[in-house]
C-alpha cells in the first residue's frame, strides 16, 4: 500500500471526494432499484395468491389451466406449491387468498375454525403404492392398501414416508392406522420432503412409498420403481378449494379469489382440468358437480 506512504492532505481530500461520488452513485443505483421494485409491485395489482400442493404444481396442471383462466378473467394467479399442511398454515396466517389442497378432514377443520369460507370439491385422482421392481414384500398386482402396508411392515422392506404433514402423508398415516401398525424401525424412513424428493429417495434406496398418481406420471427419475398396488377405494384422493376468510384477514382478495373458485368448478374450468394429459394419461378427474350434491 504505497498509496498511503505518499499521502498528503490534498490527496486525502481528493480521495474523500471520490469516495463520496462513488457512494452517492451506489446509493442512487440502490434507490432506483428500490423505486423500480415499488413500481412493479404497485402496477401488478390484479393477482391472487394460491397456496397449493406440490402435486398440482409439479405435475404441470397449473401450467395448463391457469393461462386459460387468466385469458378469460385477466386475473393473474400466483401459485405457491407446498404440502397440504403447510399450505393450510399459509392460509391461516393470511399469506394466501385461496388454498387448493387434498386432505378433506384438515380442510373441513380449516373451514370450521373460521379460517376458510367454504370448501368446494374440485377434482380427484388416486394414490398408488410404488416400489422396486424386485418387490421384496411381494405386493405386485395387489388392490388392498391395508394388506400391502401390513406386508411391508412384516417383511421390514424399506418404506419412504413423506413425513411432512402433506395430504399424501396424512393419507399414508390413515392407512397405517387402519392396519393397526405404528410404523417404526430402520425400514421406515421419514424423508421429510415433497413428493418428488421422496420419489427420488425411494428410487435410490430402493424403497416402497405412497405417491399421488399425478406426480408419479410426471416424474422423470423412476429408475426401477413401478406401481405395485392401485385401485383401492381407500386410495381415493379428493382435491378441494377454499377461499381464505376475509373476516379474519381483511386484505384477502375475496372477489378475485372467489372468481377463481367459481371458474374451477364451472363447466369451463372442469373441462380444462379434464383435458390435461401427460404421456397420454389424464392426471386429474373433475368431479365438482357430483361431490357437491
Amino acid at each position, binding site marked *: *500500500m504505497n*498509496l*498511503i*506512504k505518499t*499521502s*498528503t*492532505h490534498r490527496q*486525502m481530500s481528493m*480521495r*474523500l471526494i*471520490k*469516495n*463520496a461520488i462513488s*457512494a452517492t452513485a*451506489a*446509493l442512487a*443505483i*440502490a434507490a432506483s*432499484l428500490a423505486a423500480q*421494485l415499488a413500481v*412493479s*409491485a404497485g402496477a401488478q395489482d390484479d393477482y391472487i*395468491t394460491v397456496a397449493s400442493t*406440490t402435486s398440482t404444481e*409439479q405435475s404441470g396442471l*397449473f*401450467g395448463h389451466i391457469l393461462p386459460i383462466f387468466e385469458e378469460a378473467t385477466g386475473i393473474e394467479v*400466483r*401459485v*405457491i*406449491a407446498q404440502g397440504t399442511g403447510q399450505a393450510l398454515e399459509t392460509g*391461516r*396466517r*393470511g*399469506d394466501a387468498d385461496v388454498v387448493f389442497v387434498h386432505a378433506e378432514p384438515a380442510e373441513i377443520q380449516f373451514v370450521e375454525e373460521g379460517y376458510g369460507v367454504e370448501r368446494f370439491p374440485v377434482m380427484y385422482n388416486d394414490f398408488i403404492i410404488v416400489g422396486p421392481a424386485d418387490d421384496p414384500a411381494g405386493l405386485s398386482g395387489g388392490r388392498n392398501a391395508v394388506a400391502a402396508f401390513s406386508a411391508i411392515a412384516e417383511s421390514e422392506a424399506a418404506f419412504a414416508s413423506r413425513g411432512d404433514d402433506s395430504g399424501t402423508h396424512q393419507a399414508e398415516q390413515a392407512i397405517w392406522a387402519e392396519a393397526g401398525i405404528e410404523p417404526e424401525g430402520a425400514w421406515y424412513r421419514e424423508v421429510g420432503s*415433497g*413428493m*418428488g*424428493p421422496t*420419489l*427420488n429417495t425411494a*428410487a435410490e434406496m430402493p424403497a416402497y412409498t405412497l405417491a399421488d398418481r399425478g406426480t408419479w406420471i*410426471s*416424474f*422423470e*427419475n*423412476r429408475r426401477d420403481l413401478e406401481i405395485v398396488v392401485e385401485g383401492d377405494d381407500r386410495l381415493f384422493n379428493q382435491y378441494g378449494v377454499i377461499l381464505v376468510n376475509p373476516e379474519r*384477514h381483511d*386484505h384477502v382478495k375475496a372477489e378475485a379469489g372467489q372468481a377463481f373458485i367459481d371458474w374451477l368448478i364451472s363447466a369451463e374450468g372442469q373441462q380444462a382440468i379434464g383435458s390435461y394429459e401427460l404421456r397420454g394419461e389424464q392426471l386429474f378427474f373433475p368431479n365438482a358437480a357430483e361431490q357437491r350434491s
Partner: protein
Amino acid sequence: MDGDGAFSTAFQLIVSGDPTLMQIVSLSLRVTLTALIIACLIGLPLGAALAMARFPGRGAAVVLFNALMGLPPVVAGLVVYLMLSRAGPLGFLALLFTPTAMIIAQSVLITPIIVSLTRSVIEDLWAEYEDQLRSLGSSAMRAIPTLLWDGRFSLVTVILAGLGRAMAEVGAVLIVGGNIAGHTRTMTTAIALETARGDLALALGLGIILLTLTLILNAGAFVSGRVAQQQAA
C-alpha cells in the same frame, strides 16, 4: 447420471434464448445484486468502524458477526418470513412472496459476511498505517473512507464472497419468495424444483448456466480489479 444430457440441455436453453430462462436469470441477478449493494452499503462502513473503534463489548460484536457468517439460510428465511407474514409485525407491507422479500432475506444473509471480512481487512491496514494517518491529523472515524479506498483491491474479494453466497443460496429465497412461476422463481429455486420433478438433466443444465454466470461475474471483477490496480501503480 446423464452428464451429456445436462450439458446439451444447458446449451440448447442458452442458444434458444428461452424466454422463461431469461426471465429467471434476470430475476436472479436483480435480487442478488440488489442484496449485494445493500449489504455493501451497510457492511463496508460498519466493518471498517468495527475494525478501528474501541468500545466495551467490541470483542462480543466481532464474535457475533463472525458467527452470523454461518447463519443457516433457512433460518434467515424463516425469520424474514415470520416478520413479513400477514400475521407478523410487518405484514401490512404485503411483501411476502415478492422479489423484495427475497432481497431482504439475502441482505440479512450476506451483510455479516461483508462486515466480518471487511473488519479483518481494515484491521490489518489500520495496524499498519495508524501512526501515519494520525500524524496527518486524521481521527479513526475520518480514516474509514481512506482505508476502505486503499483496501479496495482486497475488498473486492470480500464483496465476491458475499456475491457467491447470495448466488448459491436457495433455502431463504424459497421460503420468503415461494418459488412462484414467472414472479419469484430464481435459478436456484428452479433447480430445486426440477430436481423435485426428477428432471435431473434439466436441473443440472440450469446448474451449469448458474455456475457460468457466477464465473462471468467473478472474471469481470478480477479483470476490472487488475486494470484498476495497473492504473493505480
